[in-house]
């Protein structure tokens, strides 16, 4: 029989590690065993067993002597390296502190940003049926009108889609926008408790929606939570608030004191986390709901967000194409039957998108709905900043390690003379780098943990260090290893390359060949810093612009008394009582205010008699009372305010200038316009901002009504406290079972821009840290350069150079680098910030002084940093330096 060879690579491996004297005996035994096995089993199995046996021999007893992985001499050397690292650390406390401090700040920031980014990316990724869940988006791509996307569709849409397409397994609808009946905020109380409490975060949902979105339940089941009419699902925190320590399923609750329309709690869900639905505490069922007669089958009004669960394996792109049938047969058909002129543009530009639920959080910034979503751009920007700062920190580490190389040169020379291989010197510095890196990572971790609460409050998150996850500690170790080795690479190769003879003779000949690299690093650091400074200043300026721009109404000294709707028909009387107070100038009742979170709607306006011909102008209709214009300080351009005593004013509207312009009215006063019915314009007010400044001011018509949710009270200057007390007293007389709830209009306005403010704070923080880290780098580099030139400086001094000329000599090179960084930073910063500002309809222009300011700041900081070492070198006694020559 021909001898069959066992796997060659395994033999090779054995030959590689196994002791020569044992090899023949072992290999012979293994081959014999292999031959025996070959008769009994397949080659594959025998090969596998052979390899396994070889692997079992991979033990210290069989190792070649020079290969031994942990022979005592090596171990001893590692101990020695540690000792040397530690001694160096102690010898240069300040320098080591800078080295480790800078590094750990970088790592801490990287960790925090990493946690933030991970959290953002994981939102809505946890559903079991995740790949099958989608929501529908309505996209209008009209070149005349800016691109818009909205999540709202007519009520019957979901059902039609489900019945028509076999690949649809389930559909469910959500109504999430504030002010749609009970969606948004309400006064809320259990039926057996007298006290009305203000609650936000209500939404309407279909029973199926709860199942599709896999809402985690505490009490009750997903199937039954919303299955009965007038049932409601509440979150755990709200259950604890109203029904502490009991199961509230089956309890009755009352909305806005409407005791004739009670709701029953059908279930309690966990507090929602890591989903785009996180904002909601209450889901009200849509089961058998009809907001008006025939509403559920009416294609008129777009208020519902349909979610779709496709069958496993169904292609959502193909499904998206098929939705054209729905548009044709139902949507366009409806408008055609109504004789609506908009149908032509719709046919041309309207498209129905199918968006995976996992994309909602980060890819819906442009969708107009009331969900709180994240910003993909911010996530990427943060990731970039995190990586940049880590890079800066690594670069610093490298620079600082090489900077003090002169001190170590003798050590390296001596080691080489004694017989160190270059390899062992490399591993010495690698160990040292790992040593510093480990300390930095631990410190960074501590810093990050300590800063986490602050970071959470800035970023509006609830992040925690994921200690208990299986990957956290290993990835930290991995990070330590990678960063430690990478940043140790350059110093160790550099330091180990010293020639012993020249070093020991005292000549540390370091060519200028590395200076290009080091200069590049400084330029990189300062470019990053300047970009961040400019960004921080621009964000601040834009914020300032938003808060102080002429917004067309007066937000100061206005108290918004909320929840007046429960006063019902006593609202006008309450208002009269408040107006009688001496501290009060004006008071106006309306649910509609130029503040986010108050009521909104969507309407279309036509010139008289043209509603079947023109496309109409989109806008809002607000219901306000006769004091509204005075209380908010709107500027009346023409005409008059309402007069509730005039009967004809029930048909009157006051419009904003934008509506006049869009309709092209020459003489607006007395003109008739159409929106569901005819209106007569009696007044025109100047445009005022009632949406975020990210959006353009839209057309607006105001009609008169004496009722609403909020009483806006304008008070006398300096009498706010007194007014509040007086109003509180009046309120108590009217509504003893409901505590007064009020907000200040200017504060509510500022809160609308919390996100911008937050962005500003974060940029500030990043800018400060980046500058700090960059300064450490510059400090290291200047220390390095000056050490290199110390003899030159001494000789210059001996020959009579002035202090100033030496100082100039040392600093001018660095300042040149900062200048280069400045030139590079301008276009980068301009591009990024212009892009950010483009998100605002009303924005500042980037002006040159910002750049000059940032450049100057960077320049001064750099100068200050270099001066420390340069000054020291310039004033040092030349004799001490030249003594050894």
């Amino acid at each position, binding site marked *: 029989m021909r001898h069959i060879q066992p796997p060659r690579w395994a033999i090779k491996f054995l030959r590689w590690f196994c002791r020569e004297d044992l090899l023949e005996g072992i290999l012979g035994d293994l081959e014999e065993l292999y031959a025996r096995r070959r008769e009994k089993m397949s080659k594959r199995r025998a090969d596998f067993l052979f390899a396994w*046996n070889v692997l*079992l*021999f991979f033990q210290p*007893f*069989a190792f070649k002597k020079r290969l031994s992985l942990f022979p005592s001499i090596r171990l001893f050397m590692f101990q020695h390296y540690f000792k040397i690292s530690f001694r160096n650390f102690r010898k240069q406390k300040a320098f080591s502190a800078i080295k480790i401090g800078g590094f750990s700040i970088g790592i801490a920031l990287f960790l925090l940003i990493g946690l933030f980014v991970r959290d953002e990316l994981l939102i809505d990724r946890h559903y079991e049926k995740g790949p099958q869940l989608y929501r529908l988006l309505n996209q209008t791509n009209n070149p005349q009108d800016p691109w818009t996307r909205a999540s709202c569709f007519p009520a019957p849409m979901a059902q039609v889609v489900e019945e028509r397409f076999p690949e649809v397994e389930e559909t469910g609808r959500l109504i999430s926008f504030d002010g749609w009946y009970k969606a948004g905020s309400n006064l809320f109380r259990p039926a057996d408790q007298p006290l009305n409490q203000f609650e936000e975060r209500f939404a309407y949902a279909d029973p199926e929606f709860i199942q599709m979105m896999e809402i985690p339940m505490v009490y009750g089941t997903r199937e039954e939570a919303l299955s009965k009419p007038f049932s409601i699902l509440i979150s755990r925190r709200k259950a604890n608030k109203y029904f502490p320590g009991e199961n509230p399923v089956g309890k009755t609750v009352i909305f806005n004191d409407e005791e004739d329309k009670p709701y029953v709690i059908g279930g309690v869900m966990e507090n929602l986390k890591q989903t785009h639905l996180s904002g909601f505490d209450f889901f009200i069922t849509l089961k058998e709901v009809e907001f008006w007669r025939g509403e559920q089958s009416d294609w008129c009004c777009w208020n519902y967000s349909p979610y779709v669960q496709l069958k496993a394996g169904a292609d959502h792109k193909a499904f998206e194409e098929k939705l054209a049938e729905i548009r044709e047969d139902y949507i366009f058909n409806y408008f055609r039957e109504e004789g609506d002129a908009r149908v032509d543009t719709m046919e041309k530009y309207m498209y129905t998108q199918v968006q995976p639920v996992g994309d909602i959080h980060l890819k819906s910034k442009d969708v107009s709905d009331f969900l709180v979503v994240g910003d993909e751009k911010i996530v990427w920007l943060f990731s970039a900043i995190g990586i940049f700062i880590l890079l800066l920190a690594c670069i610093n580490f490298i620079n600082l390690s090489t900077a003090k190389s002169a001190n170590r040169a003798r050590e390296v020379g001596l080691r080489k003379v004694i017989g160190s291989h270059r390899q062992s010197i490399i591993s010495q510095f690698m160990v040292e780098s790992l040593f510093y890196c480990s300390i930095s990572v631990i410190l960074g971790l501590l810093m990050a943990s300590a800063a986490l609460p602050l970071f959470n409050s800035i970023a509006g998150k609830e992040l925690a260090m994921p200690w208990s996850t299986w990957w956290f500690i290993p990835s930290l170790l991995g990070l330590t290893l990678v960063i430690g080795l990478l940043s140790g690479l350059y110093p160790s190769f550099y330091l180990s390359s010293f020639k012993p003879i020249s070093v020991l003779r005292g000549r540390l000949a370091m060519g200028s060949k590395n200076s290009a690299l080091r200069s590049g690093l400084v330029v990189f650091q300062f470019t990053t810093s300047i970009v961040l400074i400019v960004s921080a200043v621009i964000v601040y300026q834009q914020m300032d612009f938003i808060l102080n721009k002429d917004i067309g109404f007066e937000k100061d000294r206005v108290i918004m008394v909320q929840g007046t709707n429960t006063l019902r028909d006593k609202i006008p009387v309450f208002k009269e009582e408040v107006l009688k107070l001496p501290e009060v100038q004006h008071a106006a009742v309306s649910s509609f205010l130029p503040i986010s979170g108050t009521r909104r709607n969507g309407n279309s306006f036509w010139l008289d008699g043209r509603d079947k011909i023109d496309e109409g102008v989109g806008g809002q209709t607000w219901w306000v009372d006769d004091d509204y214009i005075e209380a908010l300080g709107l500027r009346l351009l023409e005409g008059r305010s309402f007069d509730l005593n005039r009967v004809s004013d029930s048909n009157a509207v006051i419009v904003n200038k934008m509506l006049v312009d869009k309709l092209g009215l020459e003489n607006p006063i007395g003109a008739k316009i159409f929106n569901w019915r005819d209106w007569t314009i009696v007044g025109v007010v100047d445009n005022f901002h009632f949406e975020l400044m990210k959006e353009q001011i839209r057309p607006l018509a105001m009609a008169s009504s004496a009722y609403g949710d909020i009483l806006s009270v304008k008070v006398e200057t300096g009498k706010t406290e007194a007014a509040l007390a007086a109003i509180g007293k009046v309120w108590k007389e009217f509504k003893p079972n409901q505590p007064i709830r009020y907000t200040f209009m200017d504060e509510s306005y500022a809160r609308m821009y919390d996100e911008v403010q937050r962005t500003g704070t974060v940029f500030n923080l990043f800018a400060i840290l980046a500058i700090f880290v960059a300064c450490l780098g510059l400090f290291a580099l200047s220390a390095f350069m000056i050490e290199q030139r110390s003899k030159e400086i001494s000789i210059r001094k001996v020959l009579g150079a002035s202090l100033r000329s030496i100082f100039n000599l040392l600093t001018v090179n660095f300042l040149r680098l900062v200048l280069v960084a400045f030139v590079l930073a301008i276009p980068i910063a301009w591009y990024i910030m212009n892009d950010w500002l483009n998100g605002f309809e009303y924005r500042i222009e980037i002006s040159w002084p910002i750049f000059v300011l940032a450049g100057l700041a960077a320049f001064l900081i750099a100068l200050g940093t270099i001066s420390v070492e340069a000054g020291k070198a310039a004033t040092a006694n030349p004799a001490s330096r030249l003594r050894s020559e």
Partner: protein
Amino acid sequence: MKGTNLGEFEELVLLTVGILYDEAYGLAITDELAAQTGRKSTISSVHKALVRLEEKGFLRSHMGGATSARGGLKKRLYTLTPSGATALQQTRSLRNDMWSKIPNIVWEGGAS
């Protein structure tokens, strides 16, 4: 004396080497061990024990006896050294000694 104590497995290997006399090499020892004790040991653990026993001076080895099944490679044949034989004997007498000291009552079911 420290370092010359025999572990249980080492003792078994040493005994097997004695049994096989001049045909004691790694694989044969593994086979014999399996036949004698019914327990399967890996070839590497046997080799490891052999190397240690040789370091302790209980075994000595020489090369010889190549076969075609071994790809023409020689065997490392182990034989007991005098100190190996003594060690075995010592272990045995130690055992015997200790055996004899166990009171008979233990063997009679331990009824007390």
